């Protein structure tokens, strides 16, 4: 309570009264466990913001799907279930390898950790690769909203491979126009998802380098764990996107 405190070096107090700081413990935490707990919790809170971020998109999707169901069906028929399905598998697998990566880090298996991360990295890239192929198809067919959007596939399904295969009937012009809303949401949702993937892959690359240098096999693995949470979250988003976007009324043929 005095006005001019005796200066005690902060670290000394700590060492004298408590336990040694590990090098990766930030100065303001009392214990390593507290730090891990805090960062883990922070990551979860961050994921909450992500949930709400995607929540806006899902709301929009549900409204318009309700309003313009035929347009959504026809739009969905333009997507390739095979590619979408493969991508789902790719992403689930990457989630699995990521989970295994966390396990390797927990059990301090450096080389397996690197392997897992590299696999995750490759699978992530694979996902984006397939997405690129799909996007390319859409671009070629002028199904990108705003960019010379073409209604050909919906007004005249016989001229279109996918629409024909799905047995679509020609649509009235006004409903056909609403496929643009479907594709807007398709691109907005998968685009946001892909953006998250790209960020994730970037961080993965960094993590692989650090893991090779032995960075995460000393017991301090919060970074890997937290990244794992992020990666699984991105996976979950896709788990919903896949049926919502690709699998609307496939049976209608």
């Amino acid at each position, binding site marked *: 309570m005095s006005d001019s405190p005796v200066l005690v070096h902060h670290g000394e107090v700590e060492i004298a009264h408590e336990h040694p700081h590990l090098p990766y413990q930030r100065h303001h935490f009392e214990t390593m466990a507290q730090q891990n707990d805090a960062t883990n919790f922070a990551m979860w809170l961050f994921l909450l913001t992500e949930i709400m971020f995607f929540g806006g998109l899902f709301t929009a999707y549900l409204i318009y799907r309700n*309003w313009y169901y*035929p347009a959504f069906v026809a739009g969905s028929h333009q997507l390739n279930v095979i590619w979408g399905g493969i991508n789902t598998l790719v992403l689930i697998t990457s989630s699995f390898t990521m989970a295994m990566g966390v396990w390797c880090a927990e059990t301090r298996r450096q080389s397996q950790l690197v392997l897992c991360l590299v696999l995750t990295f490759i699978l992530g890239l694979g996902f984006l690769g397939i997405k690129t192929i799909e996007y390319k198809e859409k671009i070629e067919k002028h199904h990108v909203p705003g960019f010379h959007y073409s209604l050909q596939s919906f007004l005249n399904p016989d001229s279109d491979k996918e629409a024909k295969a799905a047995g679509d009937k020609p*649509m*009235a*012009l*006004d*409903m056909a*126009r609403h496929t643009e809303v479907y594709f807007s949401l398709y691109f907005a949702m998968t685009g946001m998802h892909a953006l998250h993937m790209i960020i994730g892959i970037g961080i993965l690359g960094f993590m692989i380098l650090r893991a090779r240098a032995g960075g995460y096999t000393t017991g301090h693995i919060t970074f890997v764990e937290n990244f794992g949470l992020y990666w699984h979250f991105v996976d979950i988003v896709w788990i919903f996107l896949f049926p919502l976007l690709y699998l609307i009324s496939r049976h209608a043929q």
Partner: protein
Amino acid sequence: MSHISPIIWQFLVKWMTNFPLFPPEASTIAPQMDALYFFMVLVSLIGLTLVILLVTSFSILYSKKRHPVAVQIEGSTLLEATWTIIPLGLFLVMFVWGALIYFRVYTPPANAMNIYVVGKQWMWKAEHPGGQHEINALHVPVGRAVQLTLISQDVFHSFSIPAFRVKREAIPGRYTTVWFEATMPGTYHLFCTQYCGTDHSHMVGDVVVMTPEDFKKWLSSSTSGASLAQNGERLFASLSCAACHNARPDARGPSLANVYGSRLSLSSGGTVLADDAYLRESILNPSQHITQGYAPIMPTYQGQVSEEGVIALVEYIKNLNSDYRVQQTTNTTDMLPQSEGKAAVAGQNSAGQNAAAQKSAGQKPAGQGMVKP
């Protein structure tokens, strides 16, 4: 007062004589709304006084001088419950009362005369059924329920007549309605209250409330020759709607006679009430609701008809309804000078109109629950 400079003096006089503190009550709904408003003002004043009283009296009684040592008190569940429950109760009263008024304002009575209003940046266009157009003005008779059907052709606008205590958003792509019954002849402010861009503050006009006689005069002096329904009929022909909607047995589209206000069954199951909004949708987005028994062949007219055009078409289709014609007849057309009184209505609906008029005068169109209070 002579020492005040004459200019300032003039200003003061001008201000003091022109210094309203409360808007005129010029509609039937206004006193009802004000009753609630003053109830809330009263509750607020009591609440505020209570807070001020508590704070000042405690501040005086327990200032440090008078009361040097504070007495620590935990709290009191009883007191806290009191000031939870009493405001809650009062707020709930306001909620119920408010909701009742809300429904009253937005539920037009069955016999209301309908005027269409189109908002655009930055003007109001009113379309009377008799074909009278107005810009940034609205002429209505006193003592008659007037329903406005609003739509915007670009952004959100909001049609506000403070003296009537009514206001309704004009939404792009959708009809909304509001109604009022003016009680005092006079000229009142009409504002656009939803921010709509550069000249939002110039999207203002006058609502002129006239005695029925004056209104009749005004109607006849400002008619454009053709009624709204006649315009609609012309459009109906030029857009070749009649190619399908011609009431012939082999017609590709359903007959539109007596459609308005009826319940239609849809091919998707379910039924829908054919109100103004539905008619509009049917013209612009016909495949949204396919009537049972018909193929989705009707082309969309989006981009081919303006909002005013759609309004004319809607009015025309309404006029194919014997009911509606009766209603309109009792409302507006009888105010017109005899010669123009009967807007000639062509089309399929040929059955004796006058007979129908007599018979169904008391009948109200479906979906409009409120009777004039």
